């Protein structure tokens, strides 16, 4: 399938302690701040129900401050209204983060703030302390794995041909806040240089797995993963190592040059916010072929014929498919959008 125009639902998980988030139905734009909150330090636990002499279930009646409110030292959190009043006050400046089932209060100091940005133009269809979900319409291209935080910016081509590797010298500060399309491969040097130049994100057929380890650490896996910290964003479309882009995937990048786009890391998807009519939707991406040594992925090109059960160099017997690059096992040929 490849490029597809349609409605997409994107979930944005929120860290703890959100202080603002949009209402359901609100319209948002990719890149806009969607929700913000505070980073919390080690909280102080304050005896609540016991100190006030009330049952935990009755605490609602005497609590003066809602969970999630910023408080200053001395703020009355709860107070009984008798003649000899008893009160629970915040011992520090911070945030009232939690009230336990047994009636204790937790106030944590604020050590910083966080912001989650939208990676889709559209309307908020769910909004709670765990996640904000946005539904919208865009051109989209799914990849195999993405790394780093979500990215937003204008698309810009960093290569001249779909089989080219993104050369580090092609990346400079003029690409600041843009999403750069990198052809068949983006090496670690190009990734780190792009990050240093303030490039928002990188999209390519493949990235070397070793390079990803250099950039993201030894824990990196083939499934990718979203991070919130300041790291480069990389979307691998076909696989790892080298992945020359088929023309059916690359040509739309040329058409989308300069358009706003977003990389949603959790779903490893690139969204381009452009009119539906800009592209011929019938451009099906060709199938992909995994090389016999698993070293790379390439698009299936040219005439193919089934060869029946074939013996391969590894002694494996399997249905084969004759391609212009030789016979490959049929299971090593998958449609672009096959679940992987």
């Amino acid at each position, binding site marked *: 399938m490849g490029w597809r125009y349609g409605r997409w639902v994107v979930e944005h998980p929120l860290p703890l302690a959100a202080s603002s988030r949009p209402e359901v139905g609100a319209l948002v734009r990719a890149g806009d701040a969607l929700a913000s909150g505070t980073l919390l330090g*080690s909280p102080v636990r304050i005896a609540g129900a016991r100190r006030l002499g009330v049952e935990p279930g009755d605490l609602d009646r005497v609590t003066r401050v809602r969970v999630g409110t910023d408080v200053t030292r001395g703020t009355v959190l709860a107070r009984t209204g008798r003649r000899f009043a008893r009160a629970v006050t915040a011992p520090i400046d911070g945030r009232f983060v939690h009230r336990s089932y047994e009636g204790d209060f937790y106030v944590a100091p604020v050590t910083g703030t966080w912001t989650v940005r939208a990676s889709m133009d559209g309307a908020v269809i769910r909004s709670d302390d765990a*996640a904000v979900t946005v539904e919208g319409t865009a051109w989209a291209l799914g990849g195999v794995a993405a790394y780093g935080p979500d990215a937003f910016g204008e698309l810009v081509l960093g290569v001249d041909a779909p089989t080219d590797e993104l050369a580090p010298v092609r990346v400079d500060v003029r690409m600041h806040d843009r999403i750069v399309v990198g052809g068949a491969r983006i090496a670690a040097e190009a990734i780190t240089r792009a990050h240093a130049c303030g490039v928002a994100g990188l999209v390519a057929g493949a990235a070397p797995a070793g390079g990803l380890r250099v950039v993201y650490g030894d824990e990196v896996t083939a499934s990718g993963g979203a991070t919130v910290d300041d790291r480069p964003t990389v979307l691998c479309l076909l696989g790892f190592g080298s992945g020359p882009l088929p023309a059916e995937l690359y040509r739309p990048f040329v058409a989308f040059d300069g358009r706003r786009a977003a990389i949603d890391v959790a779903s490893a998807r690139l969204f381009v916010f452009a009119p539906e009519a800009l592209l011929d939707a019938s451009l099906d991406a060709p199938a992909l072929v995994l090389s016999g040594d698993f070293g790379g992925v390439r698009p299936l090109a040219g005439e193919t014929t089934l060869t029946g059960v074939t013996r*391969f160099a590894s002694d494996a017997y399997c249905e084969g498919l004759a391609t212009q690059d030789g016979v490959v096992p049929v299971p090593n040929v998958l449609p672009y959008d096959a679940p992987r």
Partner: protein
Amino acid sequence: MTGEAAPPVRRRTVDVALEARVRRWTVDEVDRRTSLIDSVTVQPDEPVDGEIIRVGSGGVMRVAVLAGGSADLEQVLRRAVLASGADLVLLLRVNDARSFVERAAALRDTRPDLVLAMVPDGREADGIVDLVEALRLGCAARTPAPRLVVAGESRAALRIKAAAAGFAVELLPDPRRPEGLRAFAHRAREFRRGTDTDAVLRDEALEEVARLVAARGRDTLVLDVAGGSTSLVRAGTHGAVTAIHVAPLGAGTAADRTVGRAGLDGVRRWIPWAIDAPTLLERVFNRARWPGAVAAEASALALEIALAHEATSHALADAAGAGLADVLRDAPVTVVTGAAASFSRAAHTALVAIDGLGSPRPTTLYRDADDALLALGGLAARIRAEGGDPQAALGDDLEERLVPIAFVAPVTPGRRSKLLVNGAAHLADDLVPGAFFSVPHHGIVDVAVTGTPLKARGTAGELGVIVDARGRPLVLPPRDAERIPTVVRWFAALDLPVASTA
């Protein structure tokens, strides 16, 4: 002339899920005797007529554990998680150094499907309640919220249940007792089965295979290395089963997770030629994202064999953490299934089992062909669920499908030790420390080594009797210049060619 009508034939299908496709076995049942007829590999959505039994891995269940600080609990918790086939994403103890907010953030970030709160006695209830509060802060807003399973001392468990307001809570027996362990594994399997309530999980099929083989009279170990999971199951002759199912850890879609645990050098050391780390990692990542990929070249096959080695040894390491390593390593019969049994040559399977398990005891080695034993395991699970006797129904077919490939005899020879095969001295190979060779033989064989306690009987197959004097634990030289000739020698000992150079 009178004739007796032929007994009716009940035809069924058993689908054993592979990574991307399924192995579809046709099964006939006549007079309560069931036998596998033939198999094909098809797409999972390929239509089929009649009754179908699906054997699959089920869904992934991410488990977080909240537990007391006592060190004794560690093994119990690990046993419970390993028996259930769950993915342990977080273990939070009451003495965890992280702050309340950090604990809550960890619980939110790891997104558990199920949280096991283990409260061994009332004195630890306060600490567990604090952890449950962190769970409330971290996950109460999530949709769907994780389920909470509370096990342990009953009064403390009720207190924790009350504290977990807003969560679906279940009380289970203490997993330190066998029935508690079974109950947790059962609950986890129900969860992994999801809406496909008729499905037989791969774990269940493997346990049935182990029971069926052990019922022939000898304790049996089943080693299953699949694309995304690795299992070790031991069954006693009376049907008692000890099992661990480790996911994600395997030679296919979990290849990257296996490398994450073992390290690149851990995997690379089993490959009999030099290969640089970036190239190897590229192959691992591509394999992990290509379900059902076939290793067309020798280098890819070598990678899968190396991954199977490490998956086995790390599953065994997990078993050791749960105090089960010896039980799950030393059985007189070892059956290899899954991807580790699907290599083109039996010798590859033998190397994975011998090196990965590193058992110091002799064993007869079998390997599953075309997932037939797993299909039998799936049938056995269904027959047992219907109240039948799997042994009576499947015993004959099992006998036919169970073909030994080798009798493995690990030994620590002395200076004057001699190998005796059926009483006759074998002098063609030198029995010295470090030796690894096979003696051609078929059928039942008695093996003894003079000057050592080794005196064992087993059944040899196409690989004969494999004599392994390399010592335990198996140590490989770290430098390629010494490592490669060593691994090549082991391959050559089982007549395996080493063709590729990466």
